[in-house]
């Protein structure tokens, strides 16, 4: 009895655990079935490949269509507003020391318009010291307003109110383009920057990196009496109902044949700086400068040097020592990139004299050291300290200056 039971259990167990060869063969599909599956998958792959190629062709065609539409859209004649541009610059200044002032020194707007490929208009309107009007600190001025006509490929003609082609800052004085909160005293007092007149000018390329500017324009009108008699800066008429008896001619030759370097010289002649007074005063200005910025090490080394001299030819001017007025400055600098923007350090030494013709000491000099920080190329924070040396201590103001500027 026990043996039968064990035998039955054993057989039952055996049949339940190990499948036989025949049972194994039954679970997998047959070789023929597998071949059918492979063929079906192959057909699916071919179908997918065909669809993929088809999709790629559609995408290519879509791309071409989009580009065609974009191109045709842009060849439609643009409205006048698409050919008009607006720009500007501005600067806020804090002057410490004896001056102790804070002032939005300049707020400038540029408006330009392209009439066609060869004719354009450009203008500059400026508000100085925030509030203009009778008894107010500021002024509203029209500094530029001219039409420019291209003459061929290399020359252009300008007519209207323009900046005189002289100096470094006279034409390029947006705050991010120079070091020091205030503009340098040499160009301010001697050139005199910013100097604009009404007239006609031609300019162009001469080859080998040379270019020229030639302008015939309204002239300065210096006072003949008072403390500012024959002082150059006091002669700016700003084309405001200006006396047009005596115009002036200015010529400049520039060389920019090396990337980062500009060398230029300007000569100007006016037949009578007094515009027909009894003290007729022919005057000549000669100015030369170098403005260089070259990559050096991790940053850019900068160097500016400028010299300018006026020669006034009249007894009235000579008597006051104003027959010769000159100025010069040198400015080395270094600018490099940081994680938050560019940082630059500078030093400047400037010397000028508005009455160099006599033996009385009237030489001014100013040394400045400081830094500019540009969070973006068109925005700038400025800091500088100036050391003055003037003929009288009352005119000296050793002080800290802080500035903020932008351009677009």
């Amino acid at each position, binding site marked *: 009895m026990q043996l039968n039971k064990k035998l039955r259990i054993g057989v039952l167990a055996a049949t339940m655990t190990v499948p036989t060869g025949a049972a194994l063969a039954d679970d997998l599909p047959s070789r023929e079935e597998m071949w059918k599956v492979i063929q079906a998958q192959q057909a699916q792959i071919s179908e997918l490949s065909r669809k993929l190629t088809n999709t790629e062709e559609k995408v290519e065609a879509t791309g071409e269509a989009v580009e065609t539409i974009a191109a045709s859209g842009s060849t439609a004649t643009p409205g006048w507003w698409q050919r008009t541009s607006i720009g500007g610059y501005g600067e806020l200044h804090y002057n410490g020391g004896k001056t102790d002032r804070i002032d939005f020194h300049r707020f400038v707007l540029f408006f330009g318009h392209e009439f066609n490929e060869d004719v354009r208009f450009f203008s500059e309107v400026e508000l100085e010291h925030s509030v203009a009007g009778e008894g107010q600190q500021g002024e509203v001025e029209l500094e530029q307003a001219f039409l420019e006509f*291209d003459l061929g*490929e290399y020359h252009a003609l300008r007519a209207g109110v323009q900046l005189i082609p002289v100096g470094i800052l006279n034409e390029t004085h947006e705050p991010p383009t120079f070091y020091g909160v205030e503009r340098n005293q040499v160009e301010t007092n001697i050139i005199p920057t910013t100097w604009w007149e009404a007239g006609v000018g031609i300019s162009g390329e001469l080859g080998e990196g040379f270019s020229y500017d030639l302008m015939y324009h309204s002239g300065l009108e210096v006072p003949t009496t008072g403390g500012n008699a024959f002082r150059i800066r006091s002669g700016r008429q700003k084309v405001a109902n200006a006396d047009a008896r005596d115009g002036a001619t200015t010529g400049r030759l520039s060389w920019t044949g090396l990337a980062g370097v500009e060398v230029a010289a300007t000569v100007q002649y006016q037949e009578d700086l007094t515009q027909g007074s009894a003290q007729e005063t022919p005057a000549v200005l000669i100015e030369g400068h170098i403005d260089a910025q070259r990559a050096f090490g991790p940053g850019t080394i900068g160097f500016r040097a400028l010299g300018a001299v006026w020669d006034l030819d009249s007894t009235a001017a000579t008597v006051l020592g104003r027959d010769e007025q000159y100025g010069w400055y040198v400015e080395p600098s270094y600018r490099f990139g940081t994680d938050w923007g560019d940082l630059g350090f500078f030093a400047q030494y400037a010397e000028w004299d508005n009455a160099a013709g006599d033996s009385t000491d009237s030489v001014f000099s100013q040394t400045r050291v400081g830094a500019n920080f540009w969070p973006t190329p068109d925005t700038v924070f400025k800091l500088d300290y100036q050391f003055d040396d003037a003929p009288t201590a009352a005119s000296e103001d050793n002080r800290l200056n802080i500035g903020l500027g932008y351009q677009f």
Partner: protein
Amino acid sequence: MRVTLGFISLWVVSILPAQSAEVFQEPNVFLSEVFANSVPDPSFLWLKGEIKEAARNVLRRDAGVLRQRYWHADGRTAWILDEIGKTQPITTGISIRNGEVERVQILIYRESHGWEVRYPFFTDQFRGMTLRQENELSSRVDGISGATLSVRAITKLVRLALLYDAFVQQEQ
């Protein structure tokens, strides 16, 4: 006075016939020079995803095209790109070899100022430059006073060409 007038009229006559022709080199001539007369068929780089974002960071604006045409042979890529200087686009040809700038050629210059950037004394300095981190150029660019915006535009295009070239090489 008569001599001055005569000189002026001679000068006027000599410059008038020349129209404001702004094409300094035809794009197909540029390509022939870059590929030694065997210019390959153009390929297209689709500006999507990562590359679209990187291009926008370099240009500080959307690239404005769906795909960028380029020419590719022997590890060298050539690009013809446009960027506005002050008010007009500057068409520039740039060739890159082994991740380095090989040539920068101003093809069509339409601005009224900043003429210096058209010349080799300005464009030659880009030769050998590569792209560093943050997609900046490996050396500082010596600018041209009075042509700051044109200089900036061309610098952006050189960075863009190096960026596109890197993506093309990656896809290979």
